């Protein structure tokens, strides 16, 4: 038992670190993820990685995976966090991709996987409905067979970044007489199809990250059904387990704690750096301790995967603890910036992000500008991907056996 990296793993770290340094787009440097970016900014790093063959590391090699060990994938995510890169979005890479290569047919694999690998095709997720959140199986969107087409009607919601999407994967009810979990099918929809309408939802941070997606008599060829009709729930659950692993965001949070320490060293309290204040320092230490515990827990899970176990119910622990830590990090960051947490930067022409040269109206320190928005935005994390309460239900059933 040891926590050291092998010389091969150290060499791998050096390799990916210099690849990132040499190839990551400079205008997105140290930028992280922001939902108000341009489409091409979201895709820039994904496309570079697609050419390099590194955009879908976890996939089987035959579909474009890198064949890296879980430890190498961990190093990869650490190095990306270190550089605050804008990583490929999860909807294709971590969600629909694994469903297609696991349950899809040869034509579907040939048609859809290359676009995910290259970053040319943007996917969105049509799961939640206004009346089906945690109780996802109560979804009402229908797909009715009409010759060699399905006709889809219904309303989806929280469709993340669907405004940019080329394709979507939708859960639709294909057998209205079956009980909840049965009678659901997993269908791929071209978002340019007539009858698909995407309406943005404004969120607390002022951004438009999610949408309502309306489907009105949308005709979809039957070959877009993945797997077996009425078995979609199985694929949906498979996808959610994949979504949860990696959701812990350990490497990003570690980088976030470093940034928090920098901010707290530059903010003052009673004439001394905020980080010297015992009450504040204690909160940062508690966060670091919880993060260290999460990191080892994730590494233990990865070691289990390396030994051939798939992502199991333990990934629910990673989801709960990971999102709690992400939220506490943004909460402490907002606390650290003090009074400059209040200005609504969306109302100030000071955009210092990409595509803007002007900062003549900037107020407050740069590190304060996104603190409140990020804090508000991150409240989503304990709600999405199966709320943290649903994760507790999963652990109750699968691990405690109650």
């Amino acid at each position, binding site marked *: 038992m040891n926590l050291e990296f092998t010389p091969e793993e150290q060499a791998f770290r050096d390799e990916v670190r210099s690849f990132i340094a040499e190839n990551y787009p400079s205008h997105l440097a140290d930028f992280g993820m922001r939902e108000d970016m341009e489409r091409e900014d979201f895709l820039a790093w994904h496309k570079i990685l697609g050419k390099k063959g590194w955009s879908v590391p976890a996939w089987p090699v035959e579909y474009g995976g890198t064949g890296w060990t879980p430890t190498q994938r961990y190093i990869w995510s650490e190095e990306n966090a270190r550089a605050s890169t804008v990583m490929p979005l999860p909807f294709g890479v971590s969600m629909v991709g694994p469903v297609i290569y696991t349950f899809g047919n040869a034509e579907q694999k040939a048609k859809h996987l290359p676009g995910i690998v290259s970053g040319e095709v943007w996917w969105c997720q049509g799961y939640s409905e206004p009346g089906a959140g945690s109780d996802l199986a109560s979804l009402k969107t229908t797909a009715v067979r009409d010759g060699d087409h399905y006709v889809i009607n219904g309303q989806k919601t929280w469709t993340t970044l669907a405004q940019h999407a080329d394709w979507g994967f939708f859960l639709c009810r294909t057998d209205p007489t079956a009980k909840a979990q049965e009678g659901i099918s997993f269908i791929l929809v071209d978002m340019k199809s007539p009858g698909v309408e995407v309406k943005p939802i404004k969120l607390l941070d002022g951004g438009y990250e999610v949408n309502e997606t309306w489907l009105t008599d949308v005709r979809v060829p039957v070959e877009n059904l993945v797997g077996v009709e009425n078995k979609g729930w199985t694929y949906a659950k498979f996808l959610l387990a994949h979504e949860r692993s990696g959701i812990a965001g350990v490497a990003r949070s570690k980088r976030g704690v470093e940034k928090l320490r920098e901010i707290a060293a530059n903010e003052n309290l009673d004439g001394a750096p905020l980080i010297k204040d015992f009450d504040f320092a204690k909160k940062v*230490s508690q966060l670091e301790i919880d993060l260290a*515990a999460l990191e080892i827990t994730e590494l233990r899970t990865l*070691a289990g995967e390396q030994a051939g176990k798939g992502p199991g119910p333990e990934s629910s622990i990673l989801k709960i603890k990971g999102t709690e830590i992400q939220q506490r990090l943004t909460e402490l960051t907002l606390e650290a910036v003090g009074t400059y947490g209040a200005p609504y930067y969306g109302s100030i022409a000071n955009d210092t992000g990409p595509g803007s040269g002007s900062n003549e109206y900037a107020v407050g320190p740069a590190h304060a500008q996104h603190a409140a928005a990020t804090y508000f935005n991150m409240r989503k994390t304990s709600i999405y991907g199966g709320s943290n309460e649903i994760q507790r239900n999963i652990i109750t059933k699968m691990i405690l056996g109650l």
Partner: protein
Amino acid sequence: MDFNFTEEQDMVRDGLSRLVREQYDWETRRKAIASNAGWRPEVWAQLAELGILGMPFSEADGGFGGGAVDAMVIMEEFGKGLVVEPFVPTVVCAGGFLKHGGTAAQKEEHIGGIVAGSAVFAFAYAEPRGRYDYADLETTAKKDGAGYVLNGHKAVVIGAPWASHLIVTARTGGDRRDRAGVSVFVVAKDSAGIVTRDYETVDGRRASEVYFENVSVPAEALIGEEGAGLALIELVTDEAIAALCAEACGAMKVAHAMTVEYSRQRKQFGVPIGSFQVLQHRMVDMYTAYETSVSLTYLATLRLASDETERKRSVSAAKVGVGQAARLIGQEAVQIHGGNGVTDEYAIGHYFKRLTIFDSEFGNVDHHMKRHIALA
């Protein structure tokens, strides 16, 4: 990076697990801790026979070449059965001082006895007013010819009633709380001038107040360099903390499993109470606290050999995180057991008591939070 145990470690775990299950069942333990002796020397002899007491010593020192991970494996099993025998004071603490600071002659004299089970040690470091500061010492060791004379009062020396030897910390120079001037001695408990007052602890163990009244010890009793003992004490107590965290993990695992099982059996409103979501989610939070404690215990154990700052930070992180989990799991386990949880009859209350006292051993949550902050 590797989270696998060796074949030998798996064998040790299996062997100990069987021993605890078959010979340390609840009624046997209850009788043993209520007996005059308060422990089971025959179990100690068995542990020696199984090689457990020699596990963390190098083969050159007469042991079996194990290390901190072996101690972790052993302590987790002890925690599961609330084993009271003094493995930490004898093997981890005294063994640690001898390994890291002992002369060849001291190793020769003492390690063989530890491995064979014939020498039992207690670690006399705490003082009535010292709290968790190992340098806050009123006990003195004054130079007297080639040797020293010890005077002072050591508090709550765990396992002292069973011990043949004591490891004692005392001031050989400097002022109270100075880092310099702290020294470590190994002393036979039957030395002239040592008076003990023995008692039970609330978690089923035995301890003593130990008074030193002009106790003469030879120069060879000094472990390490005179006046420079604090760094050695910090290293050995960090090793002890990692071992205690493993013990707490074992106890938490059983406390959680007992609680889940109780919630399956106990019926109210016509259904098992384990069917209530409000209790289910609390038991999930207990489980999560246990799992993250295991992770922090690995971290502390595997960082014992790292540089000093990294070691101390990792050990303090573990003592904070495991201490918080022990508090949560102990309290919740009692609550979910309802009235039965506060009876002496049910085992769960005894796990709660052990997990409660764990927090105050070698520095509580607040103490280690401060150390973690100071090392940031």
